[in-house]
């Protein structure tokens, strides 16, 4: 039974800004990423940095980790709250098998060692959006340990996206835990409003070793992890909705010295901010240390408006969480085909069975695309990075039509994405199906319309035009003019009205053909076939 709204006003004390709800810009096309980004901004002098990440990934599941409440983003406040989620006395956690399986699949994809037996613990702290006064997590013996993730850092200064380096980061552990609710701080009225819809939603916390050296590496790592989670379907990776949140532990030290004191920047809300926050924080620490100051071990947050990290000055920073075993959950036991108890096949979580369901992971997809379609590597990187692989493959081969992969990739990566970005749409909201885009590609390939007309048609489709493509072409008279007689007549007219250009050509300025071409396109509403027109113009100019 769902609880009626439990939102109640409470007074505000710790009102602080969070950057959580910033606009997500991480889905920008690589090519569009700021060209001036100076990747190579090395740390000054002999400073070097260390970054370790803690990533909270919300598990895509129908219900919460320990209760039957539905999981849904942006539902009306406190409508997805069971007695357990509100921590009513006497309620007990019941582990959601779907969440465990998602955790196992993710751990396998991240090359982790899966603990056949893991335990749940209580982590205590008082906070208005933590109704039980503790979070159930896996502190002593997590679901999985000792994994690693390999990822490339791309040069994003140019559209070529060359691989600058390949990195590997060690993953310390992957644990299952509950999310908290949300506190909404109303500073005007001095109140905190609590929404428990998110309370108890399943998270995977993925903890890395401090193996990254700067913001670029960390951002690339988070991006790769996001793609893996999306490929697995275990987390939607949507950072703007908070289903993936990053805490970064950052320190700097001089070459040859021990690791410096680390500061933790919490709750970074986009991949771009991961990079920015780390870059800022390293710079800050270096300035402190060079000025004979000391880095404080503390919790900070990233203020995306100012681009700075700011100390939370939180009393909780040296909090003793008073961990203890969660007594209401027996140890979580995972099985394999050999260890699964007979007859209980469907009630236990079987690691082997989950491994069989492993989908293709992004690294493999990138290679396959190059192999299978012979497209440039950077295109495969972009297709994977934008989550457009399936769309691309559909465009190439809708119902076995076998379109040219390079041209399909170009349409998808350039034209489709341009439309999406222009309209601030996510790929999920894309109104144009792969088969429709395929039809446009066909028309252009056949020469029925020009490339620029194709783009115009695509734009119309994005605008919601639901006429057939042929109808659109007919209504707008966009059909490409390929008839030599018609084109010849138009060319003659253009040449006649531009004697100065003809004269220039005669004097050896061959480039005027382009200007004449432009004039022909102007007259034909950009419908003249460029190659035929070009040939005709030259013939006529030479013939004179």
């Amino acid at each position: 039974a769902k609880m009626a709204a439990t939102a109640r006003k409470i007074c505000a004390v710790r009102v602080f800004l969070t950057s959580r709800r910033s606009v997500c810009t991480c889905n920008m096309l690589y090519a569009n990423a700021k060209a001036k980004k100076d990747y190579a901004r090395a740390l000054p002098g002999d400073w070097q940095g260390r970054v370790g990440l803690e990533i909270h990934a919300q598990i895509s599941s129908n219900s919460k980790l320990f209760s039957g409440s539905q999981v849904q983003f942006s539902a009306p406040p406190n409508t997805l709250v069971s007695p357990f989620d509100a921590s009513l006395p006497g309620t007990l956690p019941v582990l959601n098998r779907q969440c465990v399986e998602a955790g196992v699949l993710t751990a396998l994809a991240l090359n982790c060692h899966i603990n056949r037996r893991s335990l749940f613990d209580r982590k205590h702290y008082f906070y208005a959006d933590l109704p039980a006064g503790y979070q159930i997590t896996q502190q002593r013996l997590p679901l999985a340990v000792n994994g690693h993730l390999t990822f490339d850092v791309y040069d994003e200064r140019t559209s070529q996206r060359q691989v600058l380096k390949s990195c590997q980061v060690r993953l310390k552990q992957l644990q299952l835990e509950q999310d908290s609710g949300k506190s909404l701080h109303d500073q005007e009225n001095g109140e905190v409003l609590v929404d428990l819809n998110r309370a108890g939603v399943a998270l995977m916390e993925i903890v890395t070793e401090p193996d990254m050296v700067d913001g670029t590496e960390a951002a690339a790592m988070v991006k790769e992890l996001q793609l893996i989670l999306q490929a697995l379907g275990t987390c939607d990776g949507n950072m703007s909705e908070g289903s993936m949140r990053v805490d970064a532990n950052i320190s700097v030290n001089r070459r040859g010295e021990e690791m410096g004191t680390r500061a933790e920047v919490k709750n970074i809300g986009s991949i771009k901010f991961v990079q920015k926050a780390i870059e800022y924080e390293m710079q800050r620490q270096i300035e402190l240390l060079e000025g004979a100051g000391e880095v404080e071990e503390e919790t900070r947050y990233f203020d995306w408006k100012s681009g700075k990290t700011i100390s939370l000055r939180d009393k909780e920073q040296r909090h003793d969480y008073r961990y203890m075993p969660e007594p209401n959950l027996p140890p979580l036991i995972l099985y394999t085909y050999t260890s699964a108890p007979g007859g209980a096949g469907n009630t236990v979580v079987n690691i082997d069975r989950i491994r069989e369901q492993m989908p293709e992971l992004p690294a493999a997809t990138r290679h396959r695309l190059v192999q299978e379609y012979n497209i440039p590597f950077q295109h495969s990187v972009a297709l994977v990075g934008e989550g457009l692989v399936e769309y691309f493959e559909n465009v190439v081969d809708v119902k076995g039509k076998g379109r040219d992969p390079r041209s399909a990739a170009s349409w998808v990566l350039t034209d489709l994405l341009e439309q999406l970005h222009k309209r601030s749409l996510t790929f999920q909201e894309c109104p144009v199906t792969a088969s429709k885009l395929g039809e446009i590609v066909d028309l252009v390939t056949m020469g029925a319309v020009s490339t620029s007309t194709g783009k115009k048609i695509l734009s119309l489709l994005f605008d919601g035009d639901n006429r057939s493509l042929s109808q659109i072409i007919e209504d707008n008279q966009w059909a490409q003019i390929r008839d030599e007689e018609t084109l010849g007549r138009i060319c003659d007219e253009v040449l006649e009205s531009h004697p100065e250009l003809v004269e220039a050509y005669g004097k050896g300025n061959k480039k005027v053909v382009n200007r004449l071409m432009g004039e022909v396109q102007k007259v034909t509403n950009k419908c003249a076939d460029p190659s035929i027109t070009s040939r005709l113009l030259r013939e006529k100019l030479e013939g004179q």
Partner: protein
Amino acid sequence: MLGLMLKETARLLSEGKVSAAELCAACVARARQVQQLNVFITETYDTAQKQAAESAQRHREGRRLHVLDGIPVTIKDAFSTAGVRTTCASRILRDYIPPYSATMVQRLVDRGAVSLGKTNMDEFAMGCGSVDSLFGPVRNPWRYNFTTTTTTTTNKHTRAIRDSSQDSKGKNMQMRTMHHHHVTSTEDSDWFITGGSSGGSAVAVATGICKAALGSDTGGSVRNPASYCGVVGLKPTYGLLSRHGLIPLVNSLDVPGIFTRCVDDAAIVLGALAGHDPWDSTTVPDAFHPFSLPEDIDVTHLHVGIPKEYHAPHLSEETLHTWREVADMFEDAGAKVSQVSLPHTPYSIVCYSVLCAAEVASNMARYDGLEFGHRGSDESSTEALYAQTRHEGFNDVVRGRILAGNYFLLKRHYDHYFIQAQRIRRLIADDFKTVFDSGVDILLTPTTLSPAWPYSWFVKADNRTRTEQEDVFTQPVNLAGIPAVNVPVALSEAGLPIGLQLIGPSFQERTLLAAAKWVEQQVNFPHLQLPEP
């Protein structure tokens, strides 16, 4: 009718010789007759009469749901009851009405049992006297002087307590810091404690208000008051009965318990309640097969162990004597009786206090006044609100355990206290296992050091001191998770019940209760007789 056992009552109901409605009315009359014992925190007589009428209808139509259909029961106020306030005898939950029912409550309701109300207890089940309740102490019916004058006094007294909690902050503070203050006049305290923490449920069964009652047993909270009130109190194996909806004291020790007047009745109620519950992951998945106990019980193959460590200091002569007598009875009947050793028993109570405090600290963290329960008025900051809410909401016993528990759980203390306590817990569980593996079927021990204490004496020491004394024989069983039952055996010279405890291996309730029934048959305990209302 009120003196009858559950089994006999069920037979009369099914034969139509008495109706569930008549029975319920008689029980309500009895409840009113003994009102000054302060059994109930919340009475549900109206719904009970409605349920009883429905039950009577079913009986008339031959659609009896279960042997419990129409049987009056009471429920410790630690079990959540949908729509009926559930206080745990604490101010923090004084006005809390749960939106759901505990599995144990639901199973009773589903089987047609008629609930008369929520019984009084120590606040959050922390205590062994049922004296530390927001609603005042429960009184033992044995040797109690029922007088009309006391009735008025008690009523006034009860009301006074309820009122005081609504008083100004200053008064509350006083009440909170002096938790024994709700003792009224000295002349009024000439009565015996019920034991606890499930004192209300024990008294309800002893006085005939109901045929069975739910309690909860963390360190002896069912067996202890059963012993003092002269009823059967069963603490089943951990994991056999669902804790879903039971407001926890110590999750890893809590077990719903059953009060009845005789052992057969306990077996009936156990059959109605036991078994896997998807809402409680610590219940065992195996199906439970309800059983009834034979009339002729053969104890010649029974091996009864007498743990020598239970010859504790301060064990009363009378209790020791009763223990010996029953051991001799077993031996005389052909059972093998031998002394056994549970060597880690002396460390048990310390281990229990650490584990209990640690879990209490954790479990009580949810009472912040935000989602439910009492909320303070200091809104200057969230911390101030928490502090005031919790200070006002909990008595000093609860607050003391929270403080101790948080101390034990601090990172720098965790290994020295919590981990050590867990190790000792393992050793204690192993002690029992070793004894049972060696062929012993059941253990026979006292339940308490002595018969019930006078209230005036009992409250001379604080809750912690008393708990350490009172739980000495009972809490090792909780640490081991094994089943145990209190059987009323005799009356002391002063006319107070003396009970003995039988302890069995995990999930051996059948053997345990058979042995308990055999004892019951031999001793012919004189049940409390009260005049019909």
